[in-house]
């Protein structure tokens, strides 16, 4: 009976290990919760990112500060493999490549310091989206591969390296203090001599399922799905949704060419990235464009209702542009195949907002494509667009200019449209040639870098309304964009001065997109169930990594842009909630032309919930998944093939590790005890008759 009880107890222990038997684990390990891993991404030919072994990689901690430490880690230190702890200033290409090429490194933990390095830092490539833009061997070969202008000269390409060990980012907080203390107490070298056991060690788990390239992992995923009983997904394509809206509604259910529609496309991008998984603040790189276009859309709303211009304006926010133009290439593909709401014959011209948040003095630059401008008619139309923007600028403090006529277009969604047809278009940006942005696609491209900062002692509500210098300067750009679009759409000059973007709106946009998405303004613009249930609003800025859309739900940034754009281009209606959900039978309402959203409404002064109402807006989402996955061409050179590997466990923990000798001794003693007990049991069992014969009366109970 006793043994049965013991087995029961062990089973219970086994099943409830986390509840009742974890005390030993808790005593040994300190789990680190505030970490972000670097994960593996794959394209048609390569894998990038990091990975640990399936049971996690363990190493003795060593802080990397000087070249001496680097030698210690890679050559002389006696406790290899090492887990390298560094702060983000030491996280450079030269040190990382030395660690990558050493077999004595178990992993790297990078403590993110909030002060950015002065000389700049960009883990992205120096020539973003090099192979999927418009410039190739057949189209402007002398401009291909950034041969005339290196757009991101500070880019060190670390984000595109493949590391054989895990790399985690740690926020600089209490946890890092614990790690530092553990290191100081146990691992610090005294007078250059090696520390003695027990030593502080770290274990990182980030085992990735996918390997080699997208072709391999998609093939294996398909194979698993076709005949495995327990299919194991290996990777998923990066995807989300583009957001678009028009100033005059168009029938969104009818695909293909729209009769009598000529569109001026106003575009920007929605996503960015950094070295670490989903951390992507992308303030200058992405948000400056988003807020400018949103504010411009609002500036145009009243004017286009009173004096609609002859041409329509098509606002579009492309998702996944960082990863070889996922969103724009999908829209272009859909337009070519009559799967989009418009086709190429509907496109009149193109105005793209690039990075506009860091202007030097008052300068903005109008980039255009020199190759398509060799064509006389295209050149005239581009010159017309440029003159329209310049005339709009003449009403403001901004100085606009064109860069050198032989300079290529910077990386932009517009390039994907040019691949199909020489559309006249301009990319508006704050840089003449190379990016001004010193922290392109890095963790330092934050609100602080855009100078969105607030005086101390402001409440969140006051910060939301506070008009920073950045807000004022971006409002000017938004006004310029709105006026240029109106003029380009054939609007009257006399109305132009009535088009002004609102600084207050810009302040709120910047606050919501860069500081805190959970603010009263965002809450008032979203449907109530989204505010309460979905928890997409956070007390931190949204992250701009495109990621995978879980359960076909658009990610938070896309949702914000959709509802804000609905607010900027739509109108409030008197419909009640049920009518709002199903406005089919109501005269004058059409689900083909508009979406209807039952939104929370602004909260009143005493912080009670607002009065919800129905907004009608010509805003839509369009799937942004690379056509390569639609066509199942996983090795495509034309379309983006980026996929994200799946994983099971991501975790990090520290603990004290004993010397290998002590470990072996413990193991040896354990095995010896086991063997001795086996032998003893055998002898007792075989001599049971003699040993127990006198001890019992009923033999049946012995067994």
């Amino acid at each position, binding site marked *: 009976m006793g043994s049965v009880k013991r087995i029961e107890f062990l089973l219970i222990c086994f099943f409830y290990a986390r509840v009742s038997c974890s005390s030993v684990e808790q005593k040994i390990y300190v789990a680190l919760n505030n970490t972000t891993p670097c994960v593996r991404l794959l394209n048609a030919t390569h894998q990038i990112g990091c990975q640990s072994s399936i049971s996690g990689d363990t190493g003795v901690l060593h802080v990397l500060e000087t070249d001496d430490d680097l030698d210690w880690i890679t050559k002389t230190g006696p406790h290899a493999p090492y887990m390298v702890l560094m702060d983000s200033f030491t996280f450079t290409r030269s040190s990382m490549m030395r660690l990558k090429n050493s077999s004595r490194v178990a992993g790297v933990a990078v403590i993110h310091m909030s002060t950015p390095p002065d000389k700049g830092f960009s883990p992205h490539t120096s020539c973003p989206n090099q192979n999927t833009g418009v410039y190739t061997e057949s189209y402007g070969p002398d401009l291909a591969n950034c041969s005339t202008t290196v757009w991101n000269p500070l880019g060190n390409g670390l984000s595109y390296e493949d590391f054989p060990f895990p790399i985690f980012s740690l926020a600089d907080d209490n946890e890092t203090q614990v790690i530092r203390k553990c290191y100081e107490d146990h691992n610090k070298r005294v007078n250059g001599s090696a520390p003695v056991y027990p030593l502080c060690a770290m274990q990182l788990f980030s*085992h990735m399922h996918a*390997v*080699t390239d997208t072709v*391999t992992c998609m*093939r294996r995923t398909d194979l*698993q799905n076709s005949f495995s009983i327990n299919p194991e997904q290996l990777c998923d394509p990066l995807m989300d949704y583009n957001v678009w809206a028009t100033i005059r509604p168009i029938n969104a259910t009818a695909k293909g060419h729209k009769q009598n529609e000529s569109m001026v496309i106003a575009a920007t991008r929605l996503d960015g990235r950094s070295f670490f998984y989903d951390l992507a603040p992308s303030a200058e790189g992405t948000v400056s464009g988003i807020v400018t276009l949103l504010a411009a859309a609002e500036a145009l709303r009243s004017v286009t209702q009173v004096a609609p211009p002859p041409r329509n304006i098509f606002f579009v926010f492309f998702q996944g542009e960082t990863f070889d133009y996922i969103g724009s290439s999908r829209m272009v593909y859909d337009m070519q195949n009559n799967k989009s709401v418009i086709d190429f014959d509907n496109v009149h011209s193109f105005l793209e907002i690039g990075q506009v948040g860091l202007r030097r003095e008052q300068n903005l630059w109008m980039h255009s494509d020199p190759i398509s401008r060799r064509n006389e008619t295209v050149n005239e139309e581009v010159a017309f667009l440029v003159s329209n923007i310049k005339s709009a600028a003449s009403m403001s403090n901004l100085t606009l200019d064109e860069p050198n006529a032989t300079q290529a277009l910077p990386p932009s969604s517009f390039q994907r449209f040019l691949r199909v047809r020489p559309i006249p278009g301009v990319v508006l940006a704050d840089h003449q040639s190379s990016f001004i942005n010193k922290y392109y696609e890095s963790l330092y491209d934050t609100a602080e870098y855009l100078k969105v900062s607030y005086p101390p002692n402001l409440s969140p509500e006051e910060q939301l309304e506070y008009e920073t210098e950045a807000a004022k300067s971006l409002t000017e750009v938004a006004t310029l964009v709105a006026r240029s679009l109106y003029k380009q759409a054939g609007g009257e000059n006399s109305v132009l001065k009535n088009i002004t973007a609102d600084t207050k709106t810009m302040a709120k946009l910047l606050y919501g997109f860069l500081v805190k998405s959970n603010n009263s303004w965002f809450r008032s613009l979203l449907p109530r169930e989204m505010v309460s249930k979905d928890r997409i609003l956070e007390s931190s800025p949204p992250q701009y990594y495109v990621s995978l859309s879980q359960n076909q739900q658009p990610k938070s940034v896309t949702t914000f842009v959709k509802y804000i754009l609905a607010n900027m281009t739509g109108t409030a209606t008197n419909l009640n909630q049920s009518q709002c959900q199903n406005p089919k039978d109501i005269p004058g309402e059409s689900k083909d032309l508009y979406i209807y959203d039952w939104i929370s409404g602004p909260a009143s002064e005493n912080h009670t919930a607002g009065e919800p109402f129905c907004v009608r807006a010509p805003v839509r989402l369009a799937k942004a998944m690379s056509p390569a996955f639609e066509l199942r061409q996983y090795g495509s050179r034309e379309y983006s093939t980026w996929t994200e590997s799946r994983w099971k466990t991501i975790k990090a923990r520290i603990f004290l590790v004993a010397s290998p000798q002590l470990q072996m001794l413990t193991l040896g003693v354990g095995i010896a005890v086991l063997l001795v007990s086996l032998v003893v049991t055998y002898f007792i069992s075989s001599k049971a008759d003699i040993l127990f014969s006198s001890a019992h009366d009923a033999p049946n109970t012995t067994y």
Partner: protein
Amino acid sequence: MEAQTDTRFVPHFPLIRVSNREIMNLERVSNEEKLNLCRKYYLGGFAFLPFLWLVNVVWFFKEAFMKPAYTEQPQIKIYVKRSALGLILWVAVLTTWITIFQHFRAHWGEVADYLSFTIPLGTP
């Protein structure tokens, strides 16, 4: 007490249901039936079931080579030897193939994936 210990320490392996009447072990089977069993296992092995041969070799090794001679023993010997030969052949072939496959799996790429039933996660 004595009887009890006896039944407990008789090795129960290998057991096989020869007829639906009783479960038997080799000690209690007539020599004729031993030969019959051995032949069944030997012939069964030809249906690409090398493990039957393995069982045959292990099970009848004592009968074939250790026990004092009896009439059926030469025939059992032949079956056991042939089973052993077949088994060795299988082991050789499988080891060679598994070594080659594991070594070149990553290199073969697509072909190897189609040949695999489960693909290890996170390895090329």
